């Protein structure tokens, strides 16, 4: 019996899933079989040779600036991956390879980090990121209905990525969304259509609902009391 992962063939990317980066060995499993020997001839993971990896100059400069902030270069992993994702649209194998070559770590190391954190996209994703908070405080105020309405409004458009996200720390404007890292709320279910239309027209979505415009709750209290 030949080892299923032998010959250093390594992993390949599954094209059937739209090129999503799901590593699989030849027999389709995600790891060498239980009884298969480890491939001792395979070279250990190596730091990519910077001479062989093409990194766009502006991206390299950004990586180097980030690495320079820390006493230890590994600390730059998260912000470097974030910069790579901003440039490439997602943490593609190429993005990770470029980041690894400048950080002087193995691509495997950065992949292990990227898969841990929710904000790193491991598959190609839309230009617009819409995070809908569906945790407890928001769901008590209708976030699940809002999520359904947004999904319906987006209607499979690959340009807009609607995701459940765990408590975004804005329960005072529940239910709320984070659109390309900017917070908006409270939203009605009926706002979903307008939000998506604004995004498609490249306008700021729901500008009057931006969190930045909202005064503290104590001020709201005073207004309420004045109204009485």
């Amino acid at each position, binding site marked *: 019996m030949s080892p299923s992962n032998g010959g250093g063939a390594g992993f390949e990317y599954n094209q059937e899933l739209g090129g999503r980066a799901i590593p699989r060995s030849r027999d389709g499993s995600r790891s060498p079989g239980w009884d298969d020997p480890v491939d001792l001839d395979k070279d250990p993971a190596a730091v990519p040779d910077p001479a062989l990896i093409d990194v766009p100059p502006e991206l390299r400069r950004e990586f180097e600036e980030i690495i320079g*902030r*820390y*006493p*230890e*270069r*590994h*600390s*730059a*992993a*998260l*912000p470097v*991956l*974030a910069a790579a994702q901003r440039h490439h649209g997602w943490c593609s194998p190429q993005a990770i390879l470029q980041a690894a070559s400048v950080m002087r770590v193995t691509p495997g190391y950065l992949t*292990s*980090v990227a898969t*841990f*954190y*929710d*904000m*790193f996209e491991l598959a190609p994703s839309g230009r617009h990121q819409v*995070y809908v908070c569906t*945790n*407890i*405080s928001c*769901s*008590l*105020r209708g976030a699940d209905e809002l999520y359904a309405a947004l999904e319906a409004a987006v209607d499979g458009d690959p340009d807009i990525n609607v995701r459940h*996200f*765990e*408590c*975004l*720390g*804005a*329960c*005072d*404007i*529940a239910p709320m969304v*984070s659109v390309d*890292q*900017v*917070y908006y709320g409270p939203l009605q279910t009926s706002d979903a259509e307008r939000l998506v239309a604004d995004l498609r027209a490249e306008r700021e979505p729901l500008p009057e609902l931006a*969190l*930045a415009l909202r*005064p*503290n*709750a*104590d*001020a*709201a*209290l005073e207004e*309420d009391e004045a109204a009485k």
Partner: protein
Amino acid sequence: MSSLLLMRDIDEPGLADIAVYERRGGYKSLRKALAMTSDAVLAELDASGLRGRGGAGFPAGRKASFLPKGDMDKYLVCNADESEPGTFKDRELMQKSPHMLIEGIVIAAHAAGVNHAFIYIRGEYEEQAKILDLAIAQARANGYIGERILGSGVSLSLVLHRGAGAYICGEETGLLDSLEGKRGNPRLKPPFPAIEGLYGGPTLINNVETLATMPHIIEMGGAKYAKLGVSGSSGTKVVSVSGHVTRPGNYEIDLGIPSREIIYDLAGGPPAGRQVKLWFPGGSSAPVLTAEDLDVPYDFDSLAKAGSMLGSGAIIVVDDSTPVLDVALKLAKFYRHESCGKCTPCREGTNWTVRMLERIDGGEATPMDLDIMASVQDHIIGNCLCVLGDAMAMPIGSMIVKFRDEFEAHLQSRQLAGAI
């Protein structure tokens, strides 16, 4: 009414700008602190009785005093990874008064003899991170951060570090691993971070609100601050109120006022015609309390005596229109998603709790499943490296005890619906 410290000027237009902050008396406390020895600053923090505002409530002055003396590299990390469901106080403080946090960081660094400081802010808070970036640049330009701050012997570097979306990184050792560029897995303790933390050096980790309180303590003096609030829980606290209330938001209170005052008088109580069914006093990780507990004073010790905890100071109110099972399932799914998977009781316990709750909801469970679910919670608590598993086990366990009848009725009605 309560004394306002942290939120006194919070809606002052342009407070995020250093000129406005200085005009409102900002950075005066830092000048005062720099004129004192670090031991004297520590003594003020100790005298204030300030307890950590992040969740555990450990005395802040004592924590700072645990760092060894000497010339080694020591670190201060501000935990701004506010991810506890229901909590949004740090977001408002950083967004509107970033210099108050920076001033607190420099004071704490001076007290603990630290030269390198980091703010670990959650990645989702990009708006607040941009504001902080600007504020840090201004503070550096005005000589409040850097070499020999304001001509004193104190030097401090400050780096803002953005996270990337992981609840576990709010746990202090998970945060340190994440800041070192790894997956955010918690570490075995001891050694505690005060002895061996970031890059193996002594590290002081404090919550945003804890640090932002320090300028006020230095300004008024520790002894005077200790007179605010009640014995054992001194000072003021920013409480985030959310869920089924008419005015959700952040309210600064004197610790020790009745919880009812916060939920009804400040946040407006549940919508007309509905009653409080249960409430979380300290974020979603706190055991739930019911309408009977509304008169419990809102402070560390009284809430502990009532069987819950003050936690991060986030009140989530659930009224009688929501089934308790929905709340439990929402929470269990959250903790299942956020478990880092390092310790078996948490990884498996959160997963099986979700499955058992779904079985109850699907009418496939037996009443015995409630006992099994309760025992699963008991087996998580205290058996992991960090308290993420406990943070699910405590509220779910308390719901099973306090709402057992409702769980059983829910199961019965689903079984009946299935039989027809």
